[in-house]
């Protein structure tokens, strides 16, 4: 069925107008009635005001329906609610009409009989539609799947058949509150319909049960928005059902079995159950229209916890005071009451915790509760969690609390926000975002971003991206803001450490640059000059005449030798400062060169496809150089293996000897300097030296992806590219 917007609007106006008119007329007549047609009701306290109030409450259904159908005219949920409203409004109209004209003024008796006869079925759309189609179609107006079509058909046919049957089946109407009369519009030839009518009416509760099952199915597989919507309806429906159960349970012993007059509070309980119906239209209205505004999780959570606790306390009291009391024949015992109180007092806290956990799991699923998240984070910040782990932890914690598919923690570095940690780890890289001063940073393409401040200064931000099917709830926002306010101190510390780290890196880099410059100056300056001088001296020697004083020649030869020694020393000096082969050819050839000079036979295994950042290469080189020196001095080794390989964005350098082992890294041996150097590039250094099994030194240096060429201050075109 398709309707144009125009005809939908016309239908809306007509329906709303009809319902409003019927309610106004019905309520007016009801107010003017003197008879009180509802007095015979077996449910609730009865009376004029109860009837009036209940009518007002039923009016909420069409109100909700009108609002929904107006905003979302293509969503059948609104129209179902309006139809329910038609049912309730007819009920009000018919009851009011018959009550006023027939019972109060004895006029229009036949018309009143017709009205009462028709009122026989007004509960069917009212209750039947609420229990079937509203549940089946909520919240998007579609059945959960095609499999539920039979249910819809059976419910629809049963409702239609019931209405026709209740209207036209011949016989005597036994409508509550009205005297008996024969159906004035009964059609004798429809007498055969009566047994079918019972079947149809019996099918309605079955349809309601099946529809409730559909609701459960839909809830179980719902996500995000739909799940939020379902929670509203589920909560209100469960509340209505619970109140009805309580009211029925409380009433049963008195009315039917107890043969005792019901206490005065039972009708109030019944009223409460009756009035609770108002929750359903309200919940449906909020769910469809305002689902993003309110988060019901907390309400459900609390309701579950306190409901269960009330049940616990009641159960303990009943079991002890009534159970044991009956058994020992003393139900009024003060001692038993005290015992019960004591047990409740002892058990309360553990039970509350357990119930809270169960409620948390039911409501939040596997997510942590907001409180847990904050407690966890504070705990980590207070304990000695390594700083580099803190922000990833924060991302993980935020993700588990909000159910986000991705969380990024940004850190402010200078005038930029830099992505510092993400959950899940290893997502796509993010570019830094420039920010200005104290204003809130804007992070695009996330569902929610909260700035982290410390003393008014923006230090970073936490950004949350949710699954497409999920939406950010107010609770998520609140949680993230709480998290951000706690994170201020953490980020400040992280930034301090970050600054310290980068200043250390700058120092090491400056030192490396200085060393390279020195090496170059030595080779291209001093060394050249000495070679030229040595050459001049040599040539001068050839010009010494054979008849000259032999001492002259000797002195010149000595000078030549000294110059030669100076050159050798200079070369070694330059090499120690910074080997040119490292700058020019990279780590592999430099390590081979080291191995050639090693006093202990050394083999090199290098698996590096590309040049690495200069700082990483230099650090790796000096680690191996120092380690080889140590092997030569202390290890008593007959061989040493040098390894260099890239593993997972880390350069892993190892120097393993087959010496005596048992090296103590804390005792000098130049290791502290290496540790500092390695730490400056965020690397780790490990010494494994079991006695008798040799020593293995392993350095792991992180290599930023794609950083190799970019970071090289002096890239030399590889000679390998030149054909030999």
């Amino acid at each position, binding site marked *: 069925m398709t309707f144009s917007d125009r005809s939908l609007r016309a239908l809306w106006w007509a329906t709303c107008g009809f319902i409003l008119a019927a309610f106004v007329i019905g309520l007016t007549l009801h107010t003017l009635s003197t008879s009180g047609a509802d007095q015979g009701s077996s449910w609730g306290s009865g009376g004029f005001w109860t009837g009036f109030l209940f009518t007002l409450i039923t009016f909420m259904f069409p109100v909700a329906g009108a609002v929904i159908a107006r905003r979302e005219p293509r969503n059948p949920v609104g129209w179902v609610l309006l139809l329910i409203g038609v049912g309730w409004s007819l009920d009000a109209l018919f009851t009011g009409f018959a009550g006023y004209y027939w019972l109060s003024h004895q006029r229009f008796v036949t018309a009143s009989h017709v009205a009462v006869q028709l009122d026989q079925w007004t509960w069917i759309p009212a209750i039947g539609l609420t229990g079937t189609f509203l549940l089946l179609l909520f919240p998007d107006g579609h059945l959960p799947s095609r499999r539920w079509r039979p249910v819809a058909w059976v419910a629809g046919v049963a409702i239609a058949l019931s209405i026709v049957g209740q209207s036209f089946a011949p016989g005597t109407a036994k409508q509550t509150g009205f005297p008996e009369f024969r159906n004035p519009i009964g059609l004798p030839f429809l007498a055969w319909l009566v047994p079918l009518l019972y079947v149809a009416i019996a099918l309605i509760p079955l349809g309601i049960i099946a529809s409730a099952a559909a609701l459960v199915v839909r809830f179980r597989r719902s996500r995000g928005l739909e799940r939020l919507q379902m929670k509203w309806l589920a909560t209100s429906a469960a509340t209505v059902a619970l109140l009805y159960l309580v009211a029925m349970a409380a009433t049963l012993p008195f009315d039917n079995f107890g043969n005792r007059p019901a206490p005065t509070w039972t009708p109030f309980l019944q009223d409460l159950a009756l009035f609770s119906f108002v929750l359903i239209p309200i919940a449906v209205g909020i769910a469809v229209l305002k689902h993003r505004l309110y988060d019901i999780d907390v309400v459900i959570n609390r309701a579950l916890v306190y409901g269960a606790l009330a049940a616990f306390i009641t159960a303990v009291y009943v079991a002890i005071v009534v159970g044991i009391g009956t058994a020992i024949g003393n139900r009024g015992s003060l001692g038993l009451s005290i015992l019960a109180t004591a047990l409740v007092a002892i058990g309360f806290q553990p039970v509350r915790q357990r119930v809270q956990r169960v409620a948390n799991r039911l409501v939040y699923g596997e997510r942590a509760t907001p409180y847990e998240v904050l407690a966890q984070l504070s705990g980590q910040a207070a304990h000695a969690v390594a700083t580099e782990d803190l922000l990833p932890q924060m991302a993980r914690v935020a993700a588990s609390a909000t159910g986000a598919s991705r969380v990024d923690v940004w850190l402010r570095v200078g005038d930029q926000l830099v992505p510092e940690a993400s959950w899940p780890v290893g997502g796509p890289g993010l570019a830094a975002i420039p920010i200005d001063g104290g204003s809130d940073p804007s992070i695009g393409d996330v569902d929610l971003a909260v700035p982290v401040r410390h003393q008014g200064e923006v230090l970073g931000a936490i950004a949350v991206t949710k699954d497409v099917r999920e939406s950010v709830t107010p609770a998520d926002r609140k949680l993230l803001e709480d998290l951000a306010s706690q994170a201020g101190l953490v980020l400040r510390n992280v930034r301090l450490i970050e600054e310290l780290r980068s200043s250390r890196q700058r120092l090491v880099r400056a030192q490396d640059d200085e060393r390279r410059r020195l090496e*170059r100056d030595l*080779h*291209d300056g001093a*060394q*050249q*000059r000495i*070679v*030229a001088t*040595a*050459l*001049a*001296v*040599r*040539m001068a020697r*050839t010009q010494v005449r054979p008849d000259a004083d032999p001492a002259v020649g000797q002195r010149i030869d000595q000078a*030549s030798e000294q*110059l*030669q020694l100076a*050159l*050798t020393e200079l*070369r070694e000096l*330059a*090499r120690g400062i910074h080997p*040119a*082969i490292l*700058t*020019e*050819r990279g780590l592999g*050839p430099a390590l*081979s*060169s080291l191995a*050639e*000079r*090693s*006093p*202990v*036979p*050394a083999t090199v295994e290098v698996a590096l496809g590309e040049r690495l950042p200069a700082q990483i290469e230099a650090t790796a080189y000096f680690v191996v150089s120092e380690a080889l020196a140590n092997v030569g001095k202390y290890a008593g080794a*007959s*061989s040493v293996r040098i390894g260099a390989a890239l593993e997972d964005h880390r350069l892993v350098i190892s120097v393993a000897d087959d010496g005596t082992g048992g090296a103590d890294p804390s005792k000098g041996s130049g290791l502290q300097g290496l540790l500092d150097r390695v730490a400056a590039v965020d690397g780790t250094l490990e010494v494994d030296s079991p006695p008798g099994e040799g020593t293995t030194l392993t350095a792991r240096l992180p290599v930023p992806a794609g950083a190799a060429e970019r970071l090289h201050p*002096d890239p*030399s*075109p590889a*000679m*390998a590219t*030149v*054909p*030999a």
Partner: protein
Amino acid sequence: MTFDPRARVDERMRVALADDSILLREGVARLLTESGFEVTSQSGDGEELLAAVAASPPDVAIVDIRMPPTHTDEGLRAAHRIREEHPEVGVLVLSQYVETDYAMQLLGTSAAGLGYLLKDRVTNVQEFTDAVRRVGAGGSVIDPEVVSRLVGRARQASPLDALSEREREVLALMAEGRSNQAISERMYLSPKTVEGHVRNIFTKLGLADTPDDHRRVLAVLTFLRS
């Protein structure tokens, strides 16, 4: 490739020089001139040298490894260009420091007409001019420091252990690119004895003997480096 011995006794060997240090370049030029070479050109960088070589191909180009603009391995690259464009020109690369890696890279697949020497060697006039002549004649020259580092390198069990002291000396001289004749002169041995040592060495190391001195250099260096 075969090389004629260039027995131009009456003619002076022609040399092109490239070094960005004028002081040193002038010194080397004077030394060579006084030692009977003809210095055909002096250049400050690789490009200049290539132009000069193309204009008047010398017998040998002597190239400093570090020259402008980057002061890293311009000399090596110029050497490769010359080998490519003027295969008949010998190239002697001088360097402030020697590394095996550079030597092997320079030699590539053929050591013919190539030399790699520490720059300091220019001060030993006899050795230096001898090296220039050998490169000019299509031979090979590898700096003794490279060789001594390779031969003297700490090793675990190796076929080198089987060599006698004499044989090791012969091996080192072979690695420096010297011919049997030169080795026998240097060690005051008869050519026959040297040939015997060489045969022994090749047998003990499991290398195939080769008549060409420059092939021998490569084979021995490769062995020493492995």
